[in-house]
């Protein structure tokens, strides 16, 4: 059974879309991949060279909080238990709402593997954090001179960060796209 989705509940989907589709996959990972090409010498791009470390890479810090909230809010906002606060299920007596809501929620957790999804996403975020911290340290302490040459030895670390981003993107895509009761 597919339930109707109220405007409030679309918020989680909208937030997910803005983070995962609009920012992470469409812009951040694409820029990271382009940066890796730059390090490989496959492309030359003076703008990317100047802006990547100062403007693009640090975007993760701004988005970090958003994805944390997204993962945290998932269970609360996407659980079919929410449907008991809207008609027609809101018309159930409090006792029924409680036990049935609880049951529906527990069944849903199992059905969508909610715990596994959130812990996988958290692990991806953590992997990104670790790689990002190392990269930040490298960027802070980098010697003056040619930027690309100084970053080339750390290509593997950038790649690890990109892979973690991709894992996170894929995991966030795996979260349900609508509220389903059964």
């Amino acid at each position, binding site marked *: 059974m597919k339930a109707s989705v109220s405007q409030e509940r679309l918020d989680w989907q909208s937030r997910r879309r803005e983070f995962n589709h609009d920012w992470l996959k469409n812009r951040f990972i694409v820029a990271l991949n382009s940066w890796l090409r730059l390090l490989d010498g496959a492309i030359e*791009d003076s703008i990317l060279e100047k802006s990547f470390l100062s403007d693009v890479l640090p975007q993760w810090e701004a988005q970090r909080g958003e994805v944390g909230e997204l993962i945290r809010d998932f269970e609360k906002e996407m659980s079919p238990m929410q449907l008991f606060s809207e008609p027609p299920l809101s018309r159930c007596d409090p006792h029924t709402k409680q036990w049935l809501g609880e049951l529906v929620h527990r069944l849903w957790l199992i059905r969508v593997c909610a715990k596994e999804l959130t812990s996988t996403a958290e692990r991806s975020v953590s992997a990104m954090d670790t790689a990002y911290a190392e990269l930040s340290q490298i960027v802070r302490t980098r010697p003056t001179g040619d930027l690309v040459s100084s970053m080339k030895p750390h290509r593997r670390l950038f790649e690890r960060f990109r892979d973690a981003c991709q894992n996170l993107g894929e995991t966030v895509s795996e979260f349900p796209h609508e509220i389903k009761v059964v």
Partner: protein
Amino acid sequence: MTYLPRILIIDDLFGRTHSDRRNEERANLCGQYLLEDVTDDEKGKGGTLKVKQPVAQAVFFRGQNPACSTVGDTVENDLEVTLSVIREGWSEPRSENPCWSMVLLDLCFYTGPVTKQSDRRASGMPESRERDNQPKHYFGLEILEAIHKEFPDLPVVIMSSMPRKNVSREFSSKGALGFLPREDTHSADRLKEMLWRHGLIQDETGEIVGRSRSLLLALRSARRAASARRNVLIRGERGVGKELLARYIGRHGSKSASAPFLTVNSAVLSPTLFASELFGIDRRVATGVEGREGLIPAATGGDLFFDEIRDMSLEAQAGILRVLEDRKVTPVGAKNSVPVDVRFLSATNFAVEELASTGRFRPDLLDRLREGGTAYLPPLRERREDIPMLVEKLVRESEAKNSAAIHRDIDPKAIEKLCAFDWPGNVRELRNCIFEAVNNNPDVEHLVVAHIRLAGSRSGVGAPQTVAATIAQPTQSVDGLLQYLANLPADEWGAAEIAGKLPEIRAAYGQLLARMVKAAIIATRRPSVDAPEGKVLIHPAMKLLTGDRTLTASKAADLLKRLLKEEANTANAALDDPLLREAHEIAHRLRPKGQPKATGVSDGEVDRGKGTQK
């Protein structure tokens, strides 16, 4: 000159422009996919991306209005303009640009007002509307549907960051050939693969010259057939370059670059000699007889190309069939067989199915020889836009072969004349013509009209026409064509020459029939709400074609199937035409079992319009 495929990318984020700076997201996508941006809308905006070894050239288009949006604007999807951009590079490509090799299409296009908030997230991007994000309403799918309808041959691959599984059924059913995740790590390699499998791309070695759509479609079907490493049958008129296509398949489907590619003229495979030629001779067969490796064992690991299989003796056919079944050969005089791993490529310019139906060619062998598919090489007259490139190459080759010849420019009027001719002998005839022109005029710096001698104009005004020139003339009716055929000037060519031309005559006849059927269908189409271009109505079309008002619907269906069957037998191209294919499907639905005996149709039948079986 390095050739790069040209792709069109339709995407709201990467297709948008800014008035004062470049589109950073687009530059990054080009960096990731190794694309050379040739959109020509970012000049003077500073900071150019340089891709050292691009995979393709890309033209970006937003698919929306306005292309350059700022806060306060409202962005709307624009299917009409999107289709006109596609059309420009597909139906009417400018001479310096090849047609689109492929379209990469986004799925989700954001529409609505550009607000300060949405602009902060991504400059010039609007707040999306709820409908934009619903897979069933994706604008990309709407574009895809329209492309499939108007440009059925145009390869489209979805490039999106949306989860593939959510839309795979929709994009497959609407004709997309694949899906590229936008953030893919191996994006450039994946794009290369997609271009190789689905794209309309030129022969990168330059051996097969041309970039006409019909040639590129032929190359694509050859690559697809090659990838499975199964036997392929190549069809096409004489002189179109069937062996070159076989070599192309060999290059693309061999296990290694050094894999052997051997050719054999099927006519030499006589009943007595084929075994020693193909299987070899064991050195212990008899005293004084030297052992010899056969062509099949020699081609192991690679390809063996049989030229004109209709000339193959029945005995040779039986022998080859055994090899195809057993995958081993026994050299003449040997006691043991030798395993072989050979792909058989074969070519014909003849309706070999007819020979199969009369027992002159083994149908089971024919099935085996085309198990990996059939590739059709179009005649030169169907790809005239390739003639300038071919002439350039052939002139240089001719100059290189003649030590006395100096480098020459090619006069545009000479190109015009060469493009206007129908080239019944196709590329081979063009090559001969150019070689002759260069050899006869080695000391001049220009190839001009006066140097060119075409077959039809060899004897000057009033000379008897060649068979080919006769066929090439626009013929107003089937009766007219038959009249031409009946009055062919056989004295100059001789009966054997005429007999040799029969496949071409038959092909021309079949194509003419197909064209007439198509014209009748177009003339009788009836526009409706469902089909604004007109619904295909085969009954009135056949009535118009035959002039027979009493023709019944079932007879009309039978007649249409028979007429198209005639063309399909010869060139196998009629049913590539979407309109004719649709008509054929309608006829087949109407008369699934009413298929008359496939022996062609006479002019009398058409004129009487009875659709009777022979």
